[in-house]
């Protein structure tokens, strides 16, 4: 079995359809592509009384489900791709044990998500899958990989689960709230793994730490998605400060993500304004 499995080779059954890069980038309806947005200024908050809330929640949770599959696959590949050792492309034994533990957790998250899909009336593979999470899990530097996946993407998962737990609570959906509550607990653990390993491995290597944090910034900005995630009242996904700090983020680091999100939102709004004006 080779090391570093490219995203195109992720194995899926016939229900799943992958969203290709070409699909992603050639869709002119996305902001800046020339499509109208019917007067909207950006993504709107997902509240139970929003007109399409149940369908938006279903689509979001399906996205989370395929993200869980990829998180499982990514953690599994980290067990395989790196040998135990002190060198740059090697990892400590305990890091591999953490990744194996994460495999189990993500497998359970898939199971939870499948039961939740059934509850929400979503068919597995109903929506196209994009492989952005797994792509970050292909980084050949294990520290960058863990920082990008466990801190940036799993950090986003903390924000999403916390937001959806609140959504379930206010919609009175007991199953959604229950599932999110449990998954949130695991994600805090995974983000903490990322924070701990970043600090431990790069303790004497500030350059590598900076490269890892830069990779995290790039991923974080990408997934602030034009203001999709932030601290504003109307942010669709709220930055979960309390849980992020539990998971090893400093107050300043959360501030930084909050600023990134604001920046992404401003850029997104400018793009929309430009698109609507032209």
């Amino acid at each position, binding site marked *: 079995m080779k090391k570093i499995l490219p995203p195109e080779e992720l194995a899926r059954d016939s229900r799943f359809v992958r969203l290709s890069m070409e699909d992603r980038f050639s869709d002119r309806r996305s902001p800046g592509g020339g499509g109208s947005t019917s007067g909207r200024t950006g993504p709107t908050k997902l509240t139970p009384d929003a007109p399409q809330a149940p369908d938006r929640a279903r689509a979001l949770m399906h996205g989370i489900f395929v993200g869980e599959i990829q998180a499982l696959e990514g953690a599994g590949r980290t067990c395989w791709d790196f040998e135990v050792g002190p060198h740059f492309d090697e990892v400590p034994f305990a890091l591999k044990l953490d990744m194996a533990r994460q495999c189990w957790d993500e497998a359970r998250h898939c199971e939870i998500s499948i039961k939740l899909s059934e509850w929400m*009336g979503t068919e597995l593979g109903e929506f196209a899958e994009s492989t952005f999470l797994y792509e970050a899990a292909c980084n050949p530097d294990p520290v960058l990989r863990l920082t990008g996946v466990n801190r940036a993407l799993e950090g986003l998962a903390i924000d999403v689960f916390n937001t959806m737990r609140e959504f379930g609570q206010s919609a009175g959906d007991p199953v959604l709230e229950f599932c999110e509550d449990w998954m949130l607990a695991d994600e805090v653990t995974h983000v903490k793994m990322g924070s701990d390993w970043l600090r431990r491995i790069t303790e004497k290597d500030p350059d590598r730490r900076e490269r890892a944090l830069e990779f995290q910034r790039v991923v974080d900005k990408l997934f602030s998605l034009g203001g999709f995630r932030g601290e504003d009242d109307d942010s669709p996904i709220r930055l979960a400060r309390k849980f992020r700090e539990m998971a090893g983020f400093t107050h300043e680091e959360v501030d930084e993500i909050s600023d990134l999100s604001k920046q992404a939102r401003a850029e997104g709004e400018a793009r929309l304004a430009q698109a609507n004006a032209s």
Partner: protein
Amino acid sequence: MAKVVVTPETFAFVSFDANHIVELTGKIADKVGLPADTEIRIEIDETTPLGRTKLLSLDPITLAVEGGSFEDAKRPRQLSDTSVIDVVGRLLFRAKDRLDAGFAAAPDDDALTLQQHTAWDTYAVGRCDRAGWAPQKKRRLYHFRNRHGFTDVADAAFDRLWNADGLTWADLEAACAETEAARVPAG
């Protein structure tokens, strides 16, 4: 068969085929039971991937849909027959209801509460099911529970609306009142 007009006739942002939508809509209208000379207009906003849909007027029957609602969720920008049938079937059943005296008292769509809207959709989609279009029943049930509460009373009301024929606006209002009474305010 109904006279169907789809706008635009050609698409630049998505790979839709207007003629195919015309053909599908004609067949759906027949099964819904609209008179053969009914005029139906479908206005598609192809520039957005969102999926909102609306019954704009009754004479002629005019449906306004965002492109995402006709799209294949697995294959962006591709038309999905299932999606077209899902949207057009539901809206045409609602149009047919509005043409009936039993729905004369129904407020405009814009004035409907989320609960009334969802109850009406349930009644419409249940009939789509019996027309053989196999809509996603569990998705509709989830939608209904979100609006009417996660309660046994709501589930029973859903089943009743789904399996019903020949309802009036008063029946839908009664179902809404029933679930309202059983709803526990979320804490």
